[in-house]
């Protein structure tokens, strides 16, 4: 999977939950400005886990802060870690 594919998939997952057009999201968009409700956030985390077949640690504030670009980087790292351990 290319970085661009990964980015697009993550943006789609987030866009669905925040009810916005994917095109309105950028790598600089912060999770904070999207004002994501707690139940929407767990659905985003589940969507990411399910799409990339990875485990986002329960208590790690892993994907909870920062920009969407940073979220993509962290997911990329989790995917890489999964392949490394496989």
């Amino acid at each position: 999977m290319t970085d661009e594919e990964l980015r697009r998939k993550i943006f789609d997952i987030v866009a669905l939950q925040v009810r916005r057009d994917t095109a309105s999201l950028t790598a600089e968009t912060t999770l904070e400005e999207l004002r994501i409700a707690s139940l929407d956030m767990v659905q985003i985390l589940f969507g990411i886990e399910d799409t990339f077949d990875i485990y986002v640690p329960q208590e790690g504030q892993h994907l909870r802060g920062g920009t969407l670009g940073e979220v993509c980087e962290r997911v990329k790292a989790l995917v890489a870690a999964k392949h490394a351990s496989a």
Partner: protein
Amino acid sequence: MSDPVRVVVTGLGCISALGHNVGELWWALESGTSGIAPISRVPHDQVHITIAAEVKHYDEARHFDAREVLAYDRYTQFALLAANEAITDAGIDFWRNETLACETAVIVGSGVGGWDTIDRTFYSLHKSGKSRVAPLTIPRLMASAATSQISVKFGLKGPAFSVSSACASSNHAIGEAYWMIRTGRARAAVVGGSEAEISVASQLAWESLRVLASDTCRPFSLGRKGMVIGEGAGMLVLERFDDASKRGARIYCEIAGYGLSADAGDMVRPDVGGAARAIRQALETSRLSPEDIDYVNAHGTGTTLNDMTEVQAIKMVFGPAAWRVMVSSTKSMHGHALGAASAIEAVATIKAIEQRVVPPTANYLGPDPDCDLDHVPNVARQMRIGAALSNSLAFGGLNAVVAFKAV
């Protein structure tokens, strides 16, 4: 106008992670001992959170014959054992008192009912490739199974139904039973709640909501990470004060009032206003003031949000009295038994009134600035409790609070 009927508790029963009866529960609560441990019913390689507050050393064959085991889901078994203990404790033989039996209600709270039966049935069909389903599957799994089986086992023929409001189920059950007796629709009640849903599917579902702690349950504490799933049942026998006095029964305490509300907001995020309205109504219906309340057995799940919200709600209703009331969460010891939680917590609260000991919040590491009431950290406290509240603030925004008063 005649005085309203007073409703008292004359029997207690409980099975939980802290033991198979009320004596074992109370010993653990008083000593601050937690029943949270590595899960035995779920393979650890299929889940990420591998702790729970399970009922331990439980052998169904010790309590039920082979035919009964076929008929009772684990949740019904727990309900029957707790009901048996409570009825024996109250010293009433309903089989010998047909009139009373016809006026005795059975109300049991449960979040999901026979989950274990559902889980095993689906597994055998979809995974093991079986093509037949046992005939008692429906009577085992229905959410009213425990209510029916208690009524059958003890010959109780009054109003009987189940209540489901997630983690507030048992408080709604206890509150409704209290109202039925108070308003003359029942003379006595066997009431409480039961839950047994620890399985791979439920554990993964709770994980997915990201509310579980991986270490332990430490409500109101610094460093709390979430809740720990528990299981079990709690049961009470309720009677009219006059009936109990007349027959010379031991009276544990009085149920003084009951408050209920809905947040009408988020499915998982608790609301200060909704919680406060239920607490305030419990005080109003019991004609108690915040100054009368010595102890609050909190909902206290151990999640960041619940505990903070609950503290705010208590402060909103109690005002300055919030600084003197003791607010502990016994979920730190028996875990979060979901639909059975408030029944187990009712037993804990009633024993606290009887024993004049406030159970602590176990696993407490230090004060969180957001939870700055007296949370009775780690060590029980000897104290006469004139009146107490037991809070339940359920997922889905359904709240129920029961007020208990020393007699």
